């Protein structure tokens, strides 16, 4: 149980691929112009990560150490192909708007990183869980960044969600405020970098606050001073 908790915490927060490892920045920065794009790419990455981690974990005892990286890449590439063909078949509009960034999931270092660092050393269960949590962590960062940029850029949320989820999803579109002038900076790559920097800063602030609170709590318990309170 504690292993389950630790893996989840690592993937979602402490070792988040987007905010801490800073892996896979290329798709992270390039496609987060809208929530829909972010969700599409996040789900695709999650699926690939899950598949590759499971397979890598299953074959880990049979893969010669010297050629493990090419084999991992092959496994990842086949899953990317599967996901790409699926998206081409079922979510064609999104497939077109994500473009080159779907095949580029192959080069996402977060995936090969998990295969190498975790899946190749752990049995199936933990490997699958790690993939799920890392993928979710990445997806959440993508979604947050996508939401920030979409609201700032064009004042909407879930614009074009029907491309991913089917026609019913048109009702999801929320117009936060109406604007005739799109804030292009938020939609262009510089806006992604700025938004990413702000997100990382926010995470650091939260972590620091928590660390400070913990030391204060510890300090008040373990130290017994009569001269005054310890901060």
């Amino acid at each position, binding site marked *: 149980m504690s292993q389950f908790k630790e893996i989840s915490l690592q993937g979602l927060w402490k070792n988040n691929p987007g905010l801490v490892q800073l892996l896979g920045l290329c798709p992270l920065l390039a496609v987060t112009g809208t929530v829909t794009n972010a969700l599409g790419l996040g789900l695709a990455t999650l699926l690939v990560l899950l598949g590759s981690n499971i397979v890598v974990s299953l074959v880990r005892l049979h893969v010669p150490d010297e050629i493990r990286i090419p084999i991992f890449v092959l496994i990842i590439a086949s899953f990317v192909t599967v996901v790409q063909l699926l998206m081409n078949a079922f979510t064609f509009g999104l497939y077109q708007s994500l473009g080159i960034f779907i095949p580029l999931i192959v080069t996402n270092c977060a995936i090969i990183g998990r295969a190498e660092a975790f899946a190749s050393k752990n049995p199936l269960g933990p490997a699958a869980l790690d993939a799920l949590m890392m993928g979710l962590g990445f997806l959440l960062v993508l979604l947050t960044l996508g939401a920030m940029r979409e609201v700032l850029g064009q004042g909407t949320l879930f614009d074009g969600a029907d491309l991913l989820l089917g026609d019913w999803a048109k009702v999801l579109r929320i117009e936060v405020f109406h604007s005739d*002038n799109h*804030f*292009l*900076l*938020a939609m*262009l790559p*510089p806006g992604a970098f*700025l938004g990413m920097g702000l997100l990382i800063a926010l995470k650091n602030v939260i972590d620091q606050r928590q660390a400070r609170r913990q030391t204060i709590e510890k300090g008040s318990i373990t130290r017994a001073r009569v001269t005054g309170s310890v901060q």
Partner: protein
Amino acid sequence: MSFKIASSPHHHSQRSTQQLMQWVALAALPGIALQAVFFGYGVIVQLLLAISTAWLSEALVLWLRKKPVLPRLLDHSALVTAVLLAISIPPYAPWWLIVIGTAFAIIMVKQLYGGLGNNLFNPAMAAYVMLLISFPVQMTQWLPPVSLQQAALSPLDAFCMVFMQYSCSGFSLSQLQLGIDGTTLATPLDTLRQDLNNGLTVSESLQRPVFFAFAGTGWLWVNLAYLLGGMLLIKLKVISWRIPLALLAGLAVPALLFWLGSSGASPSPLFHLFSGATMLAAFFIATDPVSASTTDRGRLWYGALIGLLVYIIRSYGGYPDAFAFAVLLANMCVPLIDYYTRPRTYGHKAKRDVK
């Protein structure tokens, strides 16, 4: 990030940051006044908006960073940033444009890097580029000089225009952009570029009503006023003469060469020197003490680089003026320039003398 390269002996002066910044703002006043006279009162409204936004955002960030608010606010550096941005954007741009721009300049470009003295980029120019890239339509809506407009705008109209995009009597910005003969008037730099692209010669283009003598109507006087203010700053030793001189030379020399080569296809150096934001940028923007080079020789390189970049972007680029991009590009080169132009330490000999 700090690049502590400047070595002793340092220049000493009794002036505080506050006084320096005050002088910069004061010296810009004649230029601002002429801008209001020639291009309408919108610039005053923009100034008020920019200064209040700058103070608010500076106070907010200082409070968040738990720094003393009032002393930092009163060093007037935020004021100067706000003034420079407000006079750089079109006078009747919508109100949210200058608010977003100033807040970006103060919060993102200046305070997130650590406040005054730590920013790598000139805050006003970084914000200008941000606005130009984000809102190209609003950022290029310059009105023709007042003398060429169909309807003159009163100060009240200026308020209506900035806040509602219609003057109190109901004119829209695009209506006001039309000249008396019903043709849209662009800025002199734009007009000249379009005409040259359409196969006209420089002298043919200069016949148009937006031009007066060798430069744009109104722009010539505005530039002269900023030149005057800049001279005052140099006289008071608020700024060094090196950056403005090198900048103007860096712009004028290529302009002169091309003009001598074919005076029909490229405007005279005087046109470049007295058009657009040349004098404002040379004396007020490029001389920002934080983001400019700190060594004497470095300042010459820095200024010349800006001038050259401006010439290139003005002649071959598609933007209304080039100073914001040129200043930012030169800002990026400053650490390198400073590294290679370190002054000789007092008591040490120059390298070539040692050998």
